């Protein structure tokens, strides 16, 4: 058994960490946080240059042709650095949807552009409140023409193209949903930026008005493709969340060692030590669950749906827990704009909702465990 990343993958991690430490300092993240740029363009170019955007994209489509384990390694570092770039929308959602369901022509058009940093992609799934469900999809597609509103769409304001979930039937079944690929720079698309919890990753409302779109995957297969995409993205996001958890824990630990109160380091008080120990426990459980998800993802195992749900739950809880208690360890300073704690708090709570909320994934985990037990 080998339930660890290989030495090469660890070297890749070190390389990514070094790169991000240099190019994605908290100061750089704050440029986006403060609204001075929609995302960090220089960093995006640099990530392309390093080959990170196309790590899991095959060479024939302009990627590096490594695999999902390598992408997990990069994802963890992106989360640790709180990178203000559309990585998850473009790489975990758009690129994965193309890899699963794209035609050769669609892959040739978009995947090399993703790998080179020339195209930003996203998934337009949600329509207001609620979790992913075929029932919530009201946007219609008639003869390849889309009408409707998607909201919120992660990175929608900076995206070049979107994978759009649309209603193509009215049977009340999953087969009512089909996916479409839309060039957002073409006509019939109106994009409005929305303010959100985590300004380092934008959210938008996209209105499609008689917008021409090409199908992605077979008609009526939309929901089944989306399910696969969400499972994959759940694992990849879990690695970002694990990276964020570790960084928040480290920040809390470092502050507890530096800060003196009552004549001692605050990290010598058990109330503080135990809070940090519990953060470590959450982060460790999340890491282990994510490793299992990574294995399932990289081998396309039948266990992926269950593994992805467990990783998602565990990582969501860990990141929220670590980000929240990092502020608590910092005391009043943790509640200032100046300290970086709130950036992780924002990211943790925004990420908890992005692919469907915690309760949604809890539901999925139980469904999948029952299915397994019944089998």
């Amino acid at each position, binding site marked *: *058994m*080998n*339930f*660890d990343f*290989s030495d*090469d*993958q660890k*070297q890749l991690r070190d390389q990514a960490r070094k790169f991000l430490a240099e190019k994605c300092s908290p100061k750089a993240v704050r440029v986006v946080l403060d609204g001075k740029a929609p995302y960090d363009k220089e960093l995006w170019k*640099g990530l*392309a*240059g*390093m*080959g990170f955007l196309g790590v899991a994209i095959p*060479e024939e489509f*302009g990627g*590096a*042709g*490594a695999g999902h*384990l*390598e992408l997990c390694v990069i994802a963890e570092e992106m989360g640790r650095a709180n990178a203000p770039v559309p990585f998850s929308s473009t790489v975990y959602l758009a690129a994965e949807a193309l890899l699963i369901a794209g035609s050769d022509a669609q892959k040739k058009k978009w995947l*090399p552009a993703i*790998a*080179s*940093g*020339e195209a930003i992609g996203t998934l337009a799934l949600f329509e207001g409140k609620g979790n992913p469900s075929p029932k919530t999809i009201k946007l219609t597609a008639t003869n390849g023409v889309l009408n409707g509103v998607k909201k919120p769409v992660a990175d929608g304001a900076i995206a070049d193209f979107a994978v759009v979930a649309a209603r193509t039937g009215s049977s009340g079944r999953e087969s009512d949903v089909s996916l479409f690929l839309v060039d957002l720079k073409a006509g019939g698309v109106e994009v409005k930026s929305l303010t959100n919890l985590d300004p380092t990753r934008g959210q938008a409302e996209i209105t499609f008005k008689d917008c021409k779109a090409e199908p992605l995957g077979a008609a009526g297969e939309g929901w089944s493709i989306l399910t696969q995409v969400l499972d994959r993205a759940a694992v990849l996001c879990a690695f970002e969340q694990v990276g964020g958890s570790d960084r928040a824990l480290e920040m809390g*630990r470092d502050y*507890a*060692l530096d800060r003196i109160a009552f004549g*001692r*380091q605050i*990290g*010598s008080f*058990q109330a*503080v*030590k*135990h809070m*940090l*120990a*519990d953060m*470590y*426990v959450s982060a*460790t*459980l*999340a890491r*282990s*669950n994510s*490793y299992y998800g*990574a*294995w399932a993802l*990289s081998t396309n195992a039948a266990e992926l749906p269950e593994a992805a*749900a*467990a990783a998602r*739950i*565990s990582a969501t*809880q860990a990141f929220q827990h670590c980000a929240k208690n990092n502020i608590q360890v910092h005391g009043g300073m943790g509640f200032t704009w100046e300290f970086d704690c709130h950036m992780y708090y924002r990211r943790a709570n925004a990420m908890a909702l992005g692919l469907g909320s915690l309760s949604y994934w*809890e*539901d999925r*985990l*139980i469904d999948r465990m*029952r299915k397994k037990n019944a089998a």
Partner: protein
Amino acid sequence: MPTNSVENERWWARFALPTLRTEQGLRSAMNFDDTPQEAAFRETARKWVEAHAPKELEAELSKSSLGRIRLAQHDIVDVGKAWQKKKAEGGWACLHWPREYGGRGATPIERVIWQQEEGVYGKLTQPFQIGEGMCGPTVMAFGTEDAKRRYLPKLASGEEIWCQLFSEPSAGSDVAGLRTRAEKKGDNWVVNGQKIWTSGAHYSDYGLLIARTDPNVPKHKGLTMFFLDMKSPGVEVRPIKQANGMQEFNEVYFTDVVIPDTQRLGAVGEGWSVSLTTLMNERMSIGSRLATGVPEMFEFCSNLMLEDGLAIDDPAVRSKLASWAAKSNGLKYTSYRTISALSKGERPGPENSIGKLVSGMMLQDIATYAMDLQGAAGVLTGSDEETVQGQFQQMLLSSPSMRIAGGTDEILRNIIAERVLGLPGDIRVDKDVPYNKIPTKGR
């Protein structure tokens, strides 16, 4: 390739891609497969278990959970001894120990594979776990060659059972504050005092004992480790009736018990550092699956009919169950990471220390919630149908011990904070005070 790929090519070309694509790279990817040697070892182990295990006990052993094994027809010590003896004859007892001391000289990963193949029959080794995990390794590290050859093979084969005599009524988490005295008289030591929470003392042949040999120096410096014959005159074992109504632990009283100096382990005054070896070995003994209560709870919720339908279809139930399942999976995969490190010849990291902390609390929470779902009938502890024979009630009553024995939740959090996260140790006001000057009452 991308147009701006100067750095890209430089970087991937240099080391990553070529090796990732080689056969070696592919083989080093995550997998749950045995190496050929591991597979051969597993096959040997499986065949041996198949041929020798007491199959008549399989069903009963599968059912007993939460580490408490009660067999209807047999005494666990008797059947345990029989199984352990067979294992020793076949070369499967304490298999990571050297051959000359009754082991097989197996690697840590082979030991894990053995535990997996031994399966439910591993529960029969319960009476020997303290000996194998703690006492044996301490004798191996500090005993004379004669002592090792005399005691270890019999410990390994289950012929002689060992217990551990560390905790005292006034020295639990603060075990270095222990009071039991050992005084040198010629070539012997004379021991007086009391130990507590000693599992298996009533059926043990030998005990590993830590005692105070010098009360005039700070508490950690005046301790010495010994082993003794539990049948020695002056040793009295009294069972403790626990809060859950069971009797698994004992008090052990020492009145002028004589221990020859040849049964001292380590130098006089070095008992604390010897005990750390013992405890470190306890942490190294991985692979023992901790009960979390999740499988029992999942089954319970899958069958429980509430007013509006099955419990497992209730959103509130699903949410809690999913969180527990994710935690329980997290523990399982954390142990896989440990096994993986072992397989590569690495020492397991401290991440394994979270197991008891997480599972102890989870057991208690799950028991409470299961009873909540049972409503008024949840109060019953008999073999009632409504409570599935009271299994969660038993869990509720037993779970407090999981959060205390072998290091309380609070001590475990201290260990994680100090040894993993590098936070400062607690301020110890008694650290440099001679033991006999330390206050013993709060008020």
